[in-house]
């Protein structure tokens, strides 16, 4: 192959050379040359979504479940603007994406041409970086550089905006031989003296805790296995954010559950009372910390993160270690082994005894029922009936998402895909499609709410077209349940606009798309219905009719501290718990 080719051919060639096998996209006038170049090859599979937001989330699901970069291709103007939510979602959750957008020809830029928009201007705030390619001579370099930027350091979405004339222009292609980026060189190893300090702090801790996050998953499988090794060496308890679930096995006895707003009583109280917090690839988000001035008041805090701006952003840190999780964890494992000291065994045993007391409060418990399906029970059964399989879980956003996080358990990273930072309803179905593309043989389930699923329901057609047997497990409570819960908590139970009126018949909806529909409302039928869903080798919409007014607990209400949780047996007087400043928060 000569290295002289059109810009459009260069795009496809660069994707191939970057090892891309799947892209998600939607054609239009400004990307026709690239679609034509795709037509002439079969190395890259293009998945035609039904809305560009779907392409972005599908690319996220693909990336998050495979550890690779997710790629999407959309046209100018509305194609580009439709990706904004997905790009922002990927930025917040640090998901590596490449988004290629078509643009009007360079001589028309700035003239309000048909389907022109200032894509780099609009996406500047929702990407890690973006490029407008003004001449074909820059294209190959930018394409390869974009892959480097998306994956290295803290991962994130990168937009490449390519005017149509640049797609047609002839230019020389460059291979992606080792890229030395001019300015962007993230630091991978932690400073040796800081590693030594960290190990000394760990060896003298009496009430330690590992607080881990999505950064461990992002850093790769190596980071997860090193986390397990370090936890094993030290005997410290481990909790994780929503984004980090699976990096440490939920079946391990050192696992104390997720922390944060809907985290376990034991995890949040351990965070509050610890004397040493070791944050690994987590960013002290407000869902995690609750009331900041009451956040873990008595602890020394070590923070390991590849992004220096995450350290000391929200919470004062005693020892910040900038570096990639896998590198720093490797350094910590080695240094901890070498120093040979162990923390005071008696103190650690007393700490674990305290944690067990908190655990005994059984904060994830709920009132069982044999007449109505409790949403927690539905997730528990789903877990029991699928856990032995090769399974990937995505979610939408709301109560069902939190119940999924609480009651579905993960022993491996990259198995759990959810919109954490942005909280995007409509994420789950396209993300499931992306995950299924990356893992054709796996069981991929979107745990959904009846409101969220309608936000990107059009992607059912995509699932059908590519024979992707994704399962949509709707916890149908006929409410925007999380909104309803907050209205109960903050607004006197005035359920303004949170009832899911005029819902479609989900079984018929499934059938209309050519999928399979199941409805279940009796707890006695649930297991059989779930088995039916699993066994059908086609996309399924499972309409699981659950208790309408169940609240998601435990909960740290806004403005409260980790040790001020509302427990499952205390939700009767939820409406009186939040003071005026707390109501101001989200």
């Amino acid at each position: 192959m000569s290295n002289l080719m059109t810009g459009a051919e260069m795009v496809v060639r660069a994707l191939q050379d970057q090892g891309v096998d799947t892209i998600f996209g939607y054609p239009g006038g400004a990307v026709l040359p690239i679609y034509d170049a795709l037509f002439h090859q079969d190395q890259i599979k293009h998945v035609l979504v039904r809305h560009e937001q779907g392409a972005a989330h599908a690319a996220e699901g693909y990336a998050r479940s495979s550890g690779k970069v997710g790629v999407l291709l959309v046209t100018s103007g509305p194609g580009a603007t439709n990706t904004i939510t997905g790009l922002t979602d990927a930025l917040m959750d640090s998901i590596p994406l490449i988004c290629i957008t078509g643009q009007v020809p360079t001589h028309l830029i700035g003239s309000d041409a048909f389907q022109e928009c200032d894509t780099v201007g609009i996406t500047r705030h929702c990407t890690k970086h973006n490029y407008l390619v003004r001449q074909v001579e820059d294209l190959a370099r930018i394409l390869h550089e974009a892959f480097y930027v998306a994956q290295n350091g803290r991962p994130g979405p990168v937009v490449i905006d390519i005017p149509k004339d640049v797609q047609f222009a002839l230019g020389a292609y460059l291979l992606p031989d080792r890229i030395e980026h001019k300015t962007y060189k993230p630091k991978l190893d932690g400073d040796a003296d800081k590693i030594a300090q960290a190990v000394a702090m760990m060896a003298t801790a009496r009430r330690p805790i590992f607080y881990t996050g999505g950064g461990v998953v992002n850093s790769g499988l190596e980071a997860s296995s090193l986390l397990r090794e370090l936890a094993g060496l030290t005997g410290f308890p481990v909790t994780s954010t929503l984004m980090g679930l699976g990096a440490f096995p939920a079946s391990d006895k050192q696992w104390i559950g997720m922390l944060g707003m809907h985290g376990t009583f034991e995890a949040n109280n351990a965070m509050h009372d610890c004397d040493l917090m070791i944050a690994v690839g987590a960013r002290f988000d407000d869902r995690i910390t609750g009331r900041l001035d009451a956040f873990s008041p008595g602890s020394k805090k070590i923070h390991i993160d590849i992004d220096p701006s995450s350290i000391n952003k929200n919470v004062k840190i005693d020892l910040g270690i900038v570096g990639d999780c896998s590198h720093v964890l490797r350094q910590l494992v080695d240094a901890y082994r070498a120093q040979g000291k162990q923390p005071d065994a008696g103190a650690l045993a007393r700490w674990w005894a305290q944690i067990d007391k908190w655990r005994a409060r059984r904060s994830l418990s709920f009132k069982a029922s044999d007449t109505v399906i409790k949403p927690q029970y539905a997730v528990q059964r789903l877990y029991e009936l699928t856990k032995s399989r090769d399974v990937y879980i995505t979610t939408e956003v709301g109560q069902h998402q939190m119940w999924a996080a609480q009651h579905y358990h993960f022993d491996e990273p990259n198995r759990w895909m959810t919109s954490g930072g942005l909280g995007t309803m409509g994420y789950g179905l396209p993300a499931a499609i992306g995950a299924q593309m990356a893992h054709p043989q796996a069981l991929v389930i979107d745990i959904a709410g009846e409101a969220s699923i309608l936000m990107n329901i059009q992607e059912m057609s995509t699932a059908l077209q590519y024979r992707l047997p994704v399962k949509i497990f709707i916890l149908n409570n006929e409410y925007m349940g999380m909104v309803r819960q907050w209205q109960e908590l903050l607004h006197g139970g005035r359920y303004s606009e949170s009832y899911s009126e005029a819902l479609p018949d989900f079984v018929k909806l499934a059938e209309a798309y050519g999928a399979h529909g199941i409805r279940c409302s009796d707890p006695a039928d649930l297991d059989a219905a779930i088995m039916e869903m699993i066994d059908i080798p086609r996309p399924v919409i499972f309409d699981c009719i659950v208790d309408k007014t169940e609240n998601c607990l435990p909960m740290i209400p806004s403005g409260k501290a980790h040790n001020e949780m509302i427990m499952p047996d205390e939700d009767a007087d939820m409406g009186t718990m939040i003071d005026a400043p707390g109501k101001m928060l989200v």
Partner: protein
Amino acid sequence: MNAPSAPSAPLSPYSSALGKSNIEVHTLSVLVDNEPGVLARVVGLFSGRGYNIESLTVAEVAHAEHLSRITIVTSGTPEAIEQIGHQLERLVPIHKVTDLTLRGGAVERELAMIKVAGKGACRDEALRLADAFRARVIDASIESFVFELTGNVGKIDQFIDLMRPIGLVEVARTGVAAISRGPNPI
């Protein structure tokens, strides 16, 4: 630009900036790749995250290397200013961010052009003060002067204040440019 939230505003329980009384003014020097949009990235970062810009100057400083230098005077708590530095470093086309105030020993200068109109005694008084401040006359008409004055921000402020009763018409200022003292680059 974005005024810091008034210290009297109710404190958010999510906010760590309890009592924002220790506001400092710092000068940051930012070396960037001189590519389209880089200034928008920097300015957008400040507006998007609610940081203050007291002054900002930018110009290419090394043509062959495509390097521009942005000098930003910003204000905030020491923690906020540290955060601003780290957030700037996240921008891909940025080579280096230096907090010149933290480093100590930087020289800062601003250039201003000040138009003053008046007749008779006013003109004499304007010229006398300009002489004291070592301002140069770069334009003159029968009823006006334009003075050029270089110095630190305080000196320029003071000169403008003195010109106000005499017949100040308008002012153009460049914003602060700054460089560290001694033989080494930042």
